[in-house]
């Protein structure tokens, strides 16, 4: 029994120590900018977590993040570097924003929502087909191709918003509004249904990977493509399937953000969550449940940070710095932990 508690403690420490280091380094940066770190962190925590209004915003923010995380888990488990999240997210959002106002005139809300989400997932999946096939058939490095498609996709989505899908009735360049009544219904205060959908997605992905045959095949591919081939798996098909599934989930994230929060896509809108979630997923070591916890923490930081930008004059992207620091400290700690363990085993 003692061994188990020791292990649990070790796991907690393994996360808390880098977190403390990252917050500490962040505090130093804040000090150099002439801001009070304790005030900042305190404000962020209060605003993001400890007030009802802030908590609702935080929970709402987790929806797109969790869906992106689900998508990234699928890809990374298969050893595929899907770095095209930004583009896939935006295309999903734009597809939804374009389709929604059209469908709502002819279909009831439920059907419209489902159709929009499906369209978003499909659009994003199609967008990822090129890098997927390039990798599966020709071995083209997907890090580069997915990054390029991401920028391409983001610009393309923006172009659509400004031209084809543009709402001609207003001067502001954006898509037509989807009325609030026709968006995702709230489930808890202001928090919309999308959060539950996202949570379900992450849990389902986790279960699928750990318990199903398809998930195991993904893991084999991710562990070693040579083994996958030797085991008789169809590597081409698995690569394409996981890549597109990953993109579909991310596109769904974009859709939910529109259907739940904005109801429209404004020109030049790009929250750039796609790459931001990558460190979160790695910190959680691709484990679905850990991802949920980490995402919640990051959402708190983001919501608190966005508000702090106005109140305390610390620009909101400070959270990105914290996240980067956290990942680096965690990687360092793990490395030294491994070295220490290897030495002890002699």
């Amino acid at each position, binding site marked *: 029994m003692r061994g188990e508690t020791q292990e649990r403690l070790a796991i907690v420490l393994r996360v808390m120590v880098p977190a403390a280091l990252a917050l500490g380094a962040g505090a130093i940066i804040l000090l150099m900018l002439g801001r009070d770190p304790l005030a900042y962190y305190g404000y962020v925590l209060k605003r993001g977590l400890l007030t009802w209004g802030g908590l609702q915003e935080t929970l709402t923010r987790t929806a797109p993040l969790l869906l992106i995380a689900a998508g990234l888990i699928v890809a990374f488990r298969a050893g595929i570097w899907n770095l095209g999240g930004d583009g896939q997210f935006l295309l999903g959002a734009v597809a939804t924003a374009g389709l929604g106002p059209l469908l709502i005139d002819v279909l009831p809300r439920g059907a419209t929502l489902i159709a929009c989400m499906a369209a978003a997932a499909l659009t994003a999946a199609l967008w990822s087909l090129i890098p997927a096939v390039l990798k599966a058939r020709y071995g083209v490095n997907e890090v580069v191709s997915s990054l390029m498609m991401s920028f391409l996709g983001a610009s393309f989505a923006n172009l659509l918003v400004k031209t084809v899908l543009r709402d001609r009735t207003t001067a502001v360049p954006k898509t037509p509004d989807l009325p609030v009544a026709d968006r995702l219904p709230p489930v808890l205060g202001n928090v919309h249904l999308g959060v539950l959908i996202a949570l379900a997605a992450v849990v389902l992905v986790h279960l699928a990977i750990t318990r199903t045959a*398809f998930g*195991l095949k993904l893991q*084999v591919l991710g*562990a070693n493509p040579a083994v996958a081939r030797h085991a008789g798996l169809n590597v081409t098909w698995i690569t394409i399937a996981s890549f597109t599934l990953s993109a579909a989930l991310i596109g769904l994230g974009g859709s939910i953000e529109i259907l739940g929060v904005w109801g429209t896509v404004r020109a030049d809108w790009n929250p750039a969550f796609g790459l931001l979630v990558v460190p979160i997923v790695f910190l959680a070591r691709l484990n679905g449940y850990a991802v949920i916890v980490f995402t919640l923490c990051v959402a708190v930081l983001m919501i608190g940070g966005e508000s702090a930008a106005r109140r305390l004059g610390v620009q909101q992207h400070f959270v990105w710095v914290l996240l980067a620091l956290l990942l680096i400290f965690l990687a360092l700690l793990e490395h030294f932990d491994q070295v220490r363990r290897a030495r002890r085993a*002699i």
Partner: protein
Amino acid sequence: MSSESSPVAAVCNITKRFPGVLANDGISLEFHGGEIHVLLGENGAGKSTLIGMLAGMHQPDAGEIWIGGRPVTFRSPRESLALGVGTVFQHGLLVPSLTVIENLMLGGRWWRPLGYATALARFRQLSRLLGLSIDPHAAAGRLSLGEQQQIEILRALWREGRLLILDEPTAMLTPQGAQHLGSVMRRLKEQGLALLLVTHKLPEACQWGDRISVLRRGRLIGQISPDTLRRTNAAQTRETALGMMFGGEAATGNGEASRRERRSGRGRRGDRTTPPRLSVRGLRTAATPGECPLSEVSFDLWPGEILGIAGVDGNGQKHLAEVLAGQRHALQGQITLEGWEVTAEDAAGRRRRGIRYITDDRLNEATVGGFSVAINLLLKDIGDPPYWRHGIGDFELIHRHAREVIRSNDIRTPSEKTPLGRLSGGNIQKVVLARELDRETAVAILSKPTHGLDLHNCLLARERILDDELLVISDRIAVMFQGRLTGVVENGAGAARAVARLMTGDVGP
């Protein structure tokens, strides 16, 4: 020819530990100029670790290395090279995209411009010494394995070497190539160079060694001095060496007579009364860079027989195994299993029909070290009932099955959930064999199944007398050369010689 004067190099009481294993335990050896010192031992005896330290790849935990009478520490390969210790490793260490001469110029001081003239002069000098004729401006990647090794020897001697270490140099050579290597070594010996030849092959050791040291499980078990070698004959030397290598478990027989005896005790070799179980006709595969494709392979395989495929590595064996298993596409040809043509079936399909492939790369192709033993046992059956129902895994059943297999195959593991990577090489092989060889196996393709294992873990080969296990256990031996089967030899008297000839492509009578 060897002098008993002070040694060119020596190791004193060298000890080296790695996580979980004591690789070298207090070894002391001397290397004299003009002498070939053979370091003999099974795989895993600690030979690679020892030369790794001499080459500067790692540092000893205890003990000393002496060069020219003084203790030295090598913190890197650069330092060992600087002191005249050149090493030729088993696996090619040339940069394929650079030319021969560029490879040899690697390692010079970076601020000095490349001295092509000096390098070429030295190249010609050493080539003359070793009797080589290789174009210095050829791309290193295009040389044959034998030529690459020659360049490595050249490189090891580039800077006034005192000690040349050769790690299993004949692994990739034809018998002819090995003879040529022997003559090169003799020339170097006559120049006064000290040579350390590391091998697990006893015949080589006895043929070339002026002094033989035997390692077993990290310790120096014994040494056969030059005087002893001069006094005794080859057979006695082999006996002594065998005794040292294996202690009491060594076979007292040697040569073909006892091999034949052992094999005939196995029973009938191949039931020719029934049609062949596997028929292969005209197989051809596409060429891939660095690998030898099949150009025209045909043979039959009868139930109950073992067909050994011999040949120097890189003559198409890997392609053959993969084509039969369904992992590689055949451009032409037919494969028939028990009358059914299976050429169009993929790997999974062929497996279901009973074709099993045990690859030579146990760790990087056959298994996933991070997965549990239980999952590895079912790695080729993912998704199949009864272990998976509607795509969802029945882990209770999976683990029960694993426990069964572990028990009946005597696999040493803490539990069926232990990550496979933690098991020893022998137990990993047991897992692979258990997975592949079951009641449904019709044809098993085994690629170097005992590669890297020590004696106790060989399931199939009774005796690995450091030479061809093929000659011990096969009923027939087919030889591959450049993608073709150049001949099939019935195992018996003269088989070894016939096989060796065929391996070099000599198809004549």
